[in-house]
Structures are given as C-alpha cells and as structure tokens.
C-alpha cells in the first residue's frame, strides 16, 4: 500500500478556541486539504497540500515530480546533439518553439556556428507566434479558473489559426522538431507570408474583444486585483522571470537586456505591470502583462515579416556535431514563461556530458507558498493560474 509522504516539519495542526457571546467556547482546528494531482484547475499534475484555517490558507506545500521524464538523463545518452531537439520540445509542450530555440542556441554557441540571417528572422517569427499561442492558453485557462467559461473557447479559435501556420510549415501542430542546430528543418512555404499577415489583421481586434470580455470585467478585476501580490524584491530573490517578473514592476526582458538573435534590430517594448487595478504585482497585473505582450508580439512579427531576407535555411547545419572537450555554456532565452536556460557541458564526444534545463515554470512555482499565505482557497486557484505553469517544464 503506497503511503503518502508526510509534511516536511513535524507539523501539528493548530487547535484553537473561540469564545462566543453566550459564554460557550467552540473548539477550532486547522484542516489539511489536498488539491491532488488530478484537479480541474491545477494546470497539470501538481499536488498542493494546503493547511487551512476555515477558508484562510496558513501554509501551502507544492509537491511536484508527477511528470518527471528524466530529460537530463536522456540527453546524456543521445548519440547526437540534434537528437535532443524533440525531447526539448516536450518539456514545455505549450511553447515548444522557444524550447527548441534555446537548446539550438546553446549548441550553436558551443560549436561556434553562425546561422544565416534568414534563419534568425524565421526563428523570431516562429517564437513570437508561439508566444502568442502560449499566452492564449494561459489567458483562456485563467478565465476558466475564475469561472468565465467562454473566453477559453474564443482564445482557442485564435490559437487554431496559429497552429495552422505551424502545420503548414513543419507538419506538426504542437511539437515541432523544427528549429535544428544550425538551421531549420523546412523553409517557409510560399503561402506563409500571406496567411501570417491575415492572422495579424484578424487578431488585433480579437485582443481588444478579449480584454473587454475578461480583463476589464468588474467581477474578474475584483477577483484578481490585490490578490497574490508578489513584491519586487521577493520576485528578484526568487529568480522569478518572464511575465510574472514584469508584472511585479521589474523592467527586465532577456530579449532586450541579454540580446540574442535579431531582437536588437526590431522595435518593441517590454510590458511592465503598473498596478492599475490594485497593487503592483497582483494577479491582475500579471494577466494584463500577458495581454499586452501579445500585442507586442504582433508588432515584432510584422517587422520580421517585412524584413525577411533570402537564404538557405539548411546551409549551416553541421554534418558532425563534436564540440571541444570541457567546453561548457549557459544560455538564457526569453521563453513564453520566463527565462529558459540550458547549461550544456561537453566532453568532446558526440553526446553531451551534462545538460541542465532551467525551466522558468519550475522557478516561478517555487514562489507560490510565499504569495498564497493569508489568502483564501479561491484565491489560491487564481494565484496558481496567474503563475502560468506547465508541468512538463516544472518536472522535465
């Protein structure tokens, strides 16, 4: 019989007494509830052990590892660096292009490969489209968490159009194996430009509609403003990144501050939470940062489509991948959820010696106990939703 693990410290449930106005005393006791691995709104197999006093949360202990698939161990046994790309896809399955790009970037720096400019532009277009798709999932499921069932279906309609673009290019809708080390697996098909421009024209008014329906809805604002406030210093101390960090007011975006690829040539603004509806760093800020970021992504895609040069996307793909002995590198990129980093150590052979994947969802989730304390159970669901975790990345 499998025994469930116990709480970390010797946790004894606190008991108390309340004196009523008639002079009697009522005995109270904290309750330990399990928001188990299977739950409609923990966004995957996450187990949250909550200690509650009535409806107020006293402590919240996340248990992860239900989706651990030994990504790092697999990488050490690959016969080729290119073989890692499909596995990297499956880490953060809602945002696969950015995963592949981070790993390919790390390997290219190790091997000192220069990719053609066309490859860089296409990679930016794909990553930004993927960012929009990932944020659409985040926003849609956040609506469901708060009880609004309709925005989810609207965001998925928009997402279908992005997935059509991906399917047209590389044949897959969710897990692509598209961005290879040194280039891409396929060039853009002839109809891509036209369809991408159609999508941009179609999506801008839909963003406005989504904002009217969900973000500025009075009930939604009441549920998310001043809830789960993440102060700036706590966020930086916990190495939070991505929309969560920017929602707390820190103007830090790796595409601008640690630039890679051609982002420095494009004009766009990182979006920062300003505490419009409550305090800076509450759930509403994180949500609205994601909504505004989608708009910026559209700008980036437009500029990249306009400036797309000609070239051969497979020109720089190496035949043999054998980095120098003892070469190691840590690359950080801005994925949809935050700072996705790969630390690759090579020992001179064709398979990596050590690959460490620093998943943004893993680090962002570690701050959950800090910001959930003192709130209610209903708030916990919204706070976990605003962190936007994907368990594939948390557990790898």
């Amino acid at each position, binding site marked *: 019989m499998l025994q469930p693990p116990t709480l970390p410290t010797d946790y004894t449930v606190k008991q108390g007494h309340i004196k009523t106005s008639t002079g009697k005393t009522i005995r109270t006791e904290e309750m330990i509830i399990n928001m188990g691995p299977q739950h409609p709104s923990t966004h995957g197999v996450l187990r949250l052990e909550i200690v509650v006093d009535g409806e107020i949360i006293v402590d919240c202990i996340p248990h*992860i*590892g239900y989706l651990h698939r*030994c990504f790092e161990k697999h990488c050490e046994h690959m016969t080729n660096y290119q073989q890692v790309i499909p596995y990297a896809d499956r880490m953060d399955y809602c945002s696969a292009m950015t995963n592949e790009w981070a790993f390919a970037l790390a390997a290219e720096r190790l091997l000192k490969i220069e990719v053609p400019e066309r490859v860089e532009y296409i990679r930016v277009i794909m990553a930004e489209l993927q960012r929009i798709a990932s944020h659409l999932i985040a926003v849609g499921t956040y609506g469901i968490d708060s009880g609004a069932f309709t925005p989810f279906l609207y965001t998925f309609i928009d997402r279908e159009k992005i997935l059509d673009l991906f399917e047209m290019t590389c044949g897959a809708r969710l897990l692509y194996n598209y961005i290879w080390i040194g280039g891409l697996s396929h060039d853009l098909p002839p109809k891509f430009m036209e369809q991408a421009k159609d999508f941009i024209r179609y999506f801008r008014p839909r963003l406005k509609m989504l904002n009217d329906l969900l973000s500025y809805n009075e009930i939604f604002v009441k549920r998310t403003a001043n809830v789960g406030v993440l102060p700036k210093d706590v966020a930086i*101390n916990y190495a*939070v990144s991505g929309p969560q960090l920017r929602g707390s007011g820190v103007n830090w975006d790796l595409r601008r501050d640690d630039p890679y690829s051609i982002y420095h040539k494009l004009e766009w603004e990182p979006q920062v939470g300003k505490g419009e509806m409550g305090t800076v760093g509450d759930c509403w800020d994180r949500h609205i940062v994601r909504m505004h970021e989608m708009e910026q992504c559209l700008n980036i895609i437009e500029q990249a489509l306009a400036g797309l040069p000609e070239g051969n996307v497979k020109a720089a793909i190496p035949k043999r991948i054998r980095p120098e002995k003892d*070469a190691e590198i840590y690359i950080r990129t801005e994925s949809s959820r935050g700072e996705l*980093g790969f630390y690759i150590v090579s020992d001179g052979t064709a398979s990596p010696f050590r690959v*460490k994947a*620093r998943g943004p969802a893993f680090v962002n989730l570690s701050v959950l106990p800090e910001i959930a304390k003192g709130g209610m159970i209903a708030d916990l669901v919204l706070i976990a939703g605003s962190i936007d975790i994907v368990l594939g990345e948390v557990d790898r």
Partner: protein
Amino acid sequence: MTAQEIFDILKTKFGDAIIETKFDTMQPWVRIAPNKTKELCSFLRDDTALQFDYLSCLSGMDYSNGTFGVVYHLASIVHKHKIVLKTFCTKDNLHIQSVSAVWGTANWHEREAFDLYGIIFDEHPDLRRLLMPDDWEGHPLRKDYKVQEFYHGMKVPY
C-alpha cells in the same frame, strides 16, 4: 564588470576561499571552497558594485572521476553582468554549504541537486527529494547509477 575585476574583488576579500579561476573559456568561472559558499554569495549579493541579486541556475554535477560539484550562474539585474561560480567536493564528503538563505530560489534547485545527485547541502531548511518519489532509492543522475529493479511491486526497467 569583467570576470577579472570580479575575481580581484573576491580575492582581496576572501583570499583562500577562492581556489582557482579559468578565464580563457566562453564563460569564465571562479572556483570557491564548498564550506564558504554562503558567505561569499552573501557578499556577492549585497556589495553595491557587484549586486548579484539574481541566481539564474544552480546545477549539480557528477564529473565521473569521483568528483561532484555545483555550478552557480549568477546575474545582476542592476548592473547587467554575469559570473559563474563552481564548487567541488569528493564522493565520500558530499557536503556543500547551502545558499538558500541568500537567494530563495536556491531552495528548490538544491533540493533537486540533492534528489538527483545526493549532494547534501548544509543548513538547508528542508532538504527532501523533489522530483523523485520520497521513498526512491539512489540518485538517478549519477554516472554510476543503476536503476532499482522494483518499486512497490512494480517493475521499473521495461
């Protein structure tokens, strides 16, 4: 700030806690003593010229010659510079001082390193397994790891 300048500041302050450096790679690193990590990292975080307030990544390492280690990738949001720190320890003395009091994010990273490598972090508030089940035997990412045959009656290797 370049790696050389950071190394000079550290060397003057901590002397023998800094063991060696390597500057001719793509990302220069500084090796520090395993029992002084917390002091050093506190200084790196709080000193106004350095201000490494962001711990990007903390990775456990098994160098397959009996040496284990931890690699810290630090960054600074204020000054926008980066540095890599390394500590090593041998297999029979797998103790490294924890830095979870300096950066809150190190808590989970160190738990993962403990879970997958068996490195014990002294002064860690809550060192338990993170990704593997709590009653798993062995530390999976070690180079000499043999997977266990059965787990609660279920056959593990398939």
